[in-house]
């Protein structure tokens, strides 16, 4: 036990005397958490459009006002030439050009159903679709408002049933993205720190040559691994805790569930993450190699782990791959506990999976560390 304590002490000393290292572990991640959590939104807000109004009447002006009255669209430019509108799309200055045909008002008054044209910049398919569906709902609103005003009262309407859809969003009725992103970014940042702290560790000693010195000491393999794992675990758990405080105080993320679940799983999860890092570290020849490998693994876990894009937006084989993806489990657990208040009973399978992974990874690290090979 004392041996492990000395090793732990040595690791801490090595980290704490390097100022840049301290910044990388404690300061930069928190700054990123605070700033980047605001970035993640898929809504359209003040999306610029170009207006080509060939009609130039009161009614067409009212239509334009209906567009700009929403927070979704914002008029950037207006001209009387469709080509100019297309040019703005080409230059990426607007997301959409709205073309109102000549005779728009007259047509409406005569009982027709005029059609306006939307030219949409579809480089980003997702936003293009959003712009179109928002525009359609703006047009529907406009029609509902203006048509009864100009129409003769329709007396012959017979009574027919219709279906009304009532949407409601549980747990987050405002569809606030920030409270969704904050836990995700905490998970990503702490995983990255954990992986880096562990993966660079053993291979570094190999590269500098201090690994040989360790190998001739009577330190046992498990003591050596424990001496590497514990300091990193303590550091990253501290960062996670600071992250949760930021989530609570800065972002007002609702803490609906039982925090002991989050802490228990974080503890287990980190052991697995660090075990994975140490295992790769025993296998790599240089720090550069271990960096490339861990970068790859991290990117795969993160981008296929449902942190930034929903798991359901992946094809089924990729959805299945989350069964062996620790970030996916941990991300789900943290979000479900914080945002919904899920309990042990809802999450035991996730937690069990993380425990199994932790055991496998640490065992692999201990076994693969070969004192004779250096």
């Amino acid at each position, binding site marked *: 036990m004392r041996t492990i304590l000395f090793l732990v002490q040595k690791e801490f000393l090595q980290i704490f005397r390097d100022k840049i290292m301290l910044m*990388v572990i404690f300061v930069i991640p928190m700054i990123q958490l605070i700033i980047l959590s605001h970035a993640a939104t*898929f809504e359209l807000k003040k999306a610029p459009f170009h207006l080509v109004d060939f009609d130039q009447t009161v009614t067409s002006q009212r239509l334009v006002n209906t567009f700009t009255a929403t927070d979704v669209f914002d008029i950037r430019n207006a001209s009387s030439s469709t080509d100019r509108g297309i040019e703005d799309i080409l*230059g990426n200055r607007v997301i959409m050009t709205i073309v109102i045909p000549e005779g728009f008002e007259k047509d409406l008054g005569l009982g027709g159903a005029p059609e306006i044209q939307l030219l949409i910049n579809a480089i980003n398919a997702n936003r293009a679709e959003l712009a179109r569906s928002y525009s359609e709902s703006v047009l529907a609103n406009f029609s509902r408002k203006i048509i009864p005003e100009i129409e003769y009262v329709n007396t012959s309407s017979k009574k027919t049933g219709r279906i009304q859809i009532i949407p409601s969003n549980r747990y987050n009725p405002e569809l606030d993205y920030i409270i969704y992103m904050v836990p995700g970014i905490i998970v990503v940042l702490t995983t990255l720190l954990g992986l880096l702290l562990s993966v660079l560790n053993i291979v570094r000693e190999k590269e500098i040559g201090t690994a040989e010195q360790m190998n001739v000491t009577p330190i046992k393999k498990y003591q050596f691994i424990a001496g590497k794992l514990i300091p990193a675990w303590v550091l990253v758990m501290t960062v996670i805790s600071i992250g949760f405080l930021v989530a609570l105080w800065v972002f007002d993320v609702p803490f609906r569930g039982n925090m002991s679940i989050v802490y228990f799983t974080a503890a287990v999860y980190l052991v697995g993450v660090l075990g994975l890092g140490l295992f790769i570290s025993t296998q790599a020849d240089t720090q550069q190699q271990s960096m490339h490998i861990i970068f790859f693994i991290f990117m795969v876990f993160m981008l296929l782990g449902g942190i930034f894009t929903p798991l359901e937006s992946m094809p089924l084989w990729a959805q299945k791959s989350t069964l062996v993806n620790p970030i996916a489990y941990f991300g789900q657990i943290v979000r479900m506990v914080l945002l919904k208040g899920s309990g042990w009973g809802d999450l035991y399978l996730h937690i069990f999976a993380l425990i199994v992974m932790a055991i496998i990874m640490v065992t692999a690290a201990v076994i693969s560390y070969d004192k004779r090979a250096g």
Partner: protein
Amino acid sequence: MQLLSGFIIKEFRHILRDRKTLLLLFGLPIAMLLIFGFAIRYEVNEAEVAILDKSKDEITQQIIRKIDASSEMTVTRHLLSESMIDEVFLSGDIKEVIVFEEDFMRSLERGNVVTVEVITDASEPNMAGLLQQYTNKIITSWDRENDVRVVSSNRMVSSSARMFFNPDLESVNYFVPGLIAVILMLVSTQMTSLSIAREKESGSMEVLLVSPLKPYHIIIGKVIPYFLLSLINVYSVLLMAYFVFGVPFEGSILFFTVISLLFIFVALALGLLISTRTETQRTAIMLSMVINMLPTIILSGFVFPIDSMPWILQLLSNVVPAKWYLIVVRGSMLVGSGLEYLWMESAILLGMTLFFVTVGIKNFNDRLE
């Protein structure tokens, strides 16, 4: 000059000698592009939906079948009571519950307004919004087909939309260029972030310093080999995008190559700057990964559209090199715009390169004195 070329050749040998690392250097970008290109879509795929059908008649069955048949949603559970809604949400798999009221069909036939409640698990707001849209579309299309709905006036201003550059709304066309920018940025920065830190750590820095090489020789000698090797990465990802993912390439290869080289130079120079500031490889790696990874992914427009961010983040995104490169890549691939439209982006990348190189060399000089 001969001095410099000798140094560059030596650096090249260093890199080429380590086969494993070289394999990782060229293999990983390809592997990542393949995995993410196939796995990440923006379309929702078979999200699990539960039904609470209090009526169980022909019409509700028809609507449920329609929802199940859509590619976006699949019906996996039937609930018996309202109290089960929270339960299924808490255990996580179900993302939406659709509730049909009692006597749905009869009430509808009698001419009443009947309600369908669409409840989503909005702890994933993005998903919730999309599912509301999909469900809405399916139910409205059902009632239009069956003509149950006559609003007081069904006359309406309609619209016809024309999608520019990506008419089928393929998200892969949007995603792959972003992936190229992110991968090149991260891999290139990592390459050079080690270079000088490694020399310091192994002690060979001293040897370099007493050699007749000038500081800027050392900097250039460290960058050039990686610069040339990165070209392979640029073309390998570009060819994959074109042949494997069928992303069009409308622009000019020459323009694309020049801007890509400029971009890679920015990334390499940033790595070098990190390397001059750090004493050990470990610190260099951690700094380059932690500082670079999330801002490049989040603020470049790769996943999240920059236009919908708060203004302060839009401002901040301007210092992320990948943002500018991404605009150029998307422009060259999907639109075919060249320098006449993208001169500003190109100029900014050029400016960033000059900035990082100057600061890098100056930093390096300062350290030596």
